[in-house]
């Protein structure tokens, strides 16, 4: 028996030492040599297409600040170089949990930023709370993350799913559409969107004629479209992730079924991806949310305006800039404002600094405003419609009137 | 004769439309040895498989010392005191010889023979440490017999023990069976080798196409027209 003991003990130590990484210098009273920002990204898997541009936007902000000698830290009245630490969670929430802990306990990052979307943000919420680390959450909008007891989270680039769909509800009511069909994927993000629209419509006296959840892995929508057609709705809202929106719009086009209004969430956010998969015919006259950069904000008091950002971020191919690039950059701007106003680098000081700028920060992503639970209540996204232009489609804001750049065409031709 | 140890009555077994056993009856008293002979496919092995509990009978009963055992899983039959050997020995390959016997002994219903004597009886002493899978064919057959005996059976169904053994080993095997019978064990011996069978018992039952066509002394059997026709064809 004993020869095994030696082998196991030796190997397990080897196994452990291999994984031990050097811990970065802990923050002390004198100014740290660098501000470390830690985040995760998905190198592969379902969320890769959205996660990587978000990281690119954050990296762009860091390079901008480092080119000016680092980010200005109010507590030390000087600019400090920003170091970025990233790990690849391969779109898996379980792996992400291990890596978030790695960022906090091993790399001891000053600023923690979560990966794209609710699924990959969920593990970060409790881990950050338990380690008393403030979590900058760019796009994880699940309503369950924002609870009175948790001070350690700030939603930076998107409104919480609880209020985000408000403009869409008002648009439907304004168009007096009495029969609305809602098809949503059973995951955190889509379910809370659908629930918010459902309650908003009922408050306006409209009860959806079709309200159905389908598994997130659904890929064949042909039969579902027939069931929806049977209720002959005035508007069809499909809440999914990019693969679902693509499959839905493709099935809609190839089945020859026509609805007066079709809404999906991601064309506004990942225009090029949807365009390449669904094509002009499938996207024309469909509705989506209006996202920057199509939703332009050029009068800003923090960071670059929309046109300046697009030129600086992708000078050679401005059309390729999508909302997630801006979400990453926007998160950087919130960190920048927090570091400027914070009295120290402690996490609670950062949280208070973010609260102090809330309501007065106008950026490329709109006016930044958070509630007491860290949820984003500003940056409301208008309803947009895609119009054919040349061989592709162009996104125009159609509601609310204040940010409209084109009048809505209902019913769709 | 005292109440029979093993009583098989009207035992029938069909596999789909094929009738392998058709109303076979049999009884064995303590210490009694009966040979079971018949051409290939006459139902000899099926009889052992059904009596030992490997297959449930379609009809008929098997009672052991007055208690019915038919339809029960083999381990219930073993625990009530009856075991069998296999035509092709199937020892527990992954275990050592000693482990094979320790396991069988542990689940015995009756007082099993001590391991040392058992190994000595079947001629495997000294091989306790060997993994059963690494034994040669005849050693595996002996281990199979030892495994059956380790459960302390009062009735043993022996399926072609003689097959593949050398003349010397045949004598040895016959000696073992006689020794078991003298100790009071009832034996049903399925065999093709009449010479080997004659060394163990005079009483035979002849099966053909699932039916018992003769029971009695070996000498009479060879003159019985029906048996002759079945074996030699006529």
């Amino acid at each position: 028996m004993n020869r095994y003991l030696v082998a196991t003990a030796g190997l397990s130590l080897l196994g452990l030492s291999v994984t031990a990484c050097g811990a970065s210098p802990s923050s002390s009273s004198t100014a740290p040599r660098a501000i470390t920002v830690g985040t995760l990204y998905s190198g592969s898997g379902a969320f890769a297409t959205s996660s990587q541009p978000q990281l690119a936007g954050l990296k762009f902000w860091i390079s901008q600040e480092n080119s000016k000698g680092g980010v200005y830290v109010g507590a030390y009245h000087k600019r400090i170089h920003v170091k970025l630490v990233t790990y690849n969670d391969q779109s898996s929430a379980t792996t992400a949990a291990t890596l978030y802990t790695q960022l906090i306990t091993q790399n001891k990052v000053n600023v923690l930023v979560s990966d794209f979307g609710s699924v990959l943000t969920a593990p970060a919420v409790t881990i950050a709370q338990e380690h008393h680390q403030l979590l900058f959450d760019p796009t994880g909008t699940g309503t369950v993350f924002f609870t009175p007891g948790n001070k350690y989270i700030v939603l930076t680039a998107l409104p919480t799913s609880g209020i985000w769909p408000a403009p869409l509800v008002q648009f439907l009511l304004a168009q007096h559409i009495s029969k609305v069909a809602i098809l949503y994927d059973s995951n955190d993000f889509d379910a809370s969107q659908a629930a918010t629209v459902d309650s908003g419509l009922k408050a306006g006296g409209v009860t959806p004629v079709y309200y159905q959840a389908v598994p997130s892995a659904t890929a064949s929508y042909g039969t579902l479209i027939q069931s929806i057609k049977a209720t002959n709705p005035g508007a069809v809202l499909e809440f999914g992730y990019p693969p679902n929106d693509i499959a839905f719009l493709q099935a809609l086009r190839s089945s020859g079924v026509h609805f007066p209004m079709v809404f999906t969430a991601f064309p506004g956010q990942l225009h090029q991806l949807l365009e390449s998969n669904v094509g002009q015919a499938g996207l024309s006259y469909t509705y989506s949310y209006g996202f920057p950069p199509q939703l332009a904000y050029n009068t800003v008091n923090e960071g670059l305006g929309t046109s300046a950002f697009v030129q600086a971020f992708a000078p050679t191919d401005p059309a390729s800039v999508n909302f997630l690039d801006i979400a990453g950059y926007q998160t950087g701007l919130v960190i920048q404002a927090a570091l400027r106003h914070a009295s120290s680098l402690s996490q609670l000081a950062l949280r208070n600094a973010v609260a102090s700028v809330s309501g007065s920060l106008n950026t490329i992503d709109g006016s930044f405003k958070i509630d007491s639970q860290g949820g984003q209540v500003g940056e409301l996204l208008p309803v947009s419609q895609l119009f054919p232009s040349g061989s592709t489609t162009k996104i125009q804001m159609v509601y609310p009137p204040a940010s409209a750049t084109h009048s809505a065409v209902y019913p769709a031709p | 004769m005292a109440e029979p140890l093993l009583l098989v009555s009207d035992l029938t077994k069909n596999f789909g439309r094929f009738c392998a056993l058709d109303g076979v009856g049999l009884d064995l008293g303590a210490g009694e040895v009966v040979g079971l002979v018949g051409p290939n496919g006459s139902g000899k092995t099926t009889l052992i498989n059904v009596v030992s509990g490997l297959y449930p009978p379609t009809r008929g009963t098997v009672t052991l010392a007055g208690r019915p055992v038919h339809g029960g899983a083999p381990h219930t039959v073993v625990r009530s005191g009856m075991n069998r050997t296999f035509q092709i020995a199937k020892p527990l390959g992954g275990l050592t010889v000693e482990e094979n016997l320790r396991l069988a002994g542990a689940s015995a219903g009756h007082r099993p023979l001590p391991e040392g004597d058992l190994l000595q009886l079947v001629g495997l002493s000294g091989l306790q440490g060997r993994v059963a899978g690494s034994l040669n064919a005849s050693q595996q057959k002996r281990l199979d017999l030892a495994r059956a005996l380790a459960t302390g059976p009062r009735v043993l169904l022996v399926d072609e023990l003689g097959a593949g053994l050398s003349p010397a080993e045949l004598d040895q095997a016959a000696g073992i069976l006689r020794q078991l019978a003298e100790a009071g064990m009832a034996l049903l011996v399925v065999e093709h080798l009449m010479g080997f069978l004659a060394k163990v018992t005079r009483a035979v039952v002849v099966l053909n196409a699932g039916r018992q066509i003769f029971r009695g002394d070996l000498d009479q059997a060879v003159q019985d027209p029906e048996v002759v026709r079945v074996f030699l064809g006529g």
Partner: protein
Amino acid sequence: MPAAGFVVANAFYPNQQELVMMMVYLALAQGINVIYGFTGYLPFGYVGFFGAGAYGLALSVLYLHVPAGVGLLFAVLAAVAVAALLFPLLRLEGVYFAIASLAAAEALYEVISNPSLAAVTKGPYGINLVSAYNANASFVAAVALVAVSMGIVVYLRTSRLGLALRAIRSDAVSAEFAGINVVQRRTVAWLLSAAMAGAAGGTFAWYTSTFYPGAVFDSSISIFAIVFALFGGVGTTWGPALGAVVLFGVYNAVGISQPQYFQLIYGVLIVLLVLFLPGGLGSLVQRLAPRWRRLRRTPGRGPEALPGVGGPDG
């Protein structure tokens, strides 16, 4: 002994999350050892018990307001209940059993994560046990999990039940004729293996405290546990434990430093493992051991490891 190893490791390696995951996988690998190493059944849907355990703890904490420690009992009960429900699977052989258990685990996932059951299981919207979160207590639970799972395997290797299981694995028919109630013994191993996965699931749920159904029913968890057990060598006491510690260590090291190559390296590792080391590390150590023992000229016992891995028959 390995349990103590982990306590020591925690002292100087603060990423507790990774250590807990390593301990969870060690228990799962030993669970595979119990069911595959001892009875020859390879459950490709082993994660079903893991997920059942995670939800057993989560729902008992959320609805019955039991402390998480007690929740672990509910985790084991939930997994054992699922195993009992899946008894008929034991009638199947080899490939059918592997694939059927995979389908059973996926079916269980679809039921638990279904929105129409959200009122009971929170459906696809995930579980949030922040109230029960206690990193140190759950770490201790993980260490206990390792100790218990190692203990179960040691018990099996030395007890009559273990011997009976190995007999069943060699030949179920002749095991029956050695007086072993094959169905009953196989069921005990099945329930024991499910209980171990359930406890591992409960410990994971308690430690991470927020998870989506997809995280605890991820089919790669079954595959990881199987590969860790095979890499270490099934049928032995230390094999699967060794496999879990070494392979999970490599998994994390590679996963953190060069993630994009991770899946490629991992796939190639599995292919090489099956082609060149089917018996796992155990068989390697076993092949080296005789030479080593001859050097030390001490009387060695029979080879501990089974010669390779056997399939169920009978």
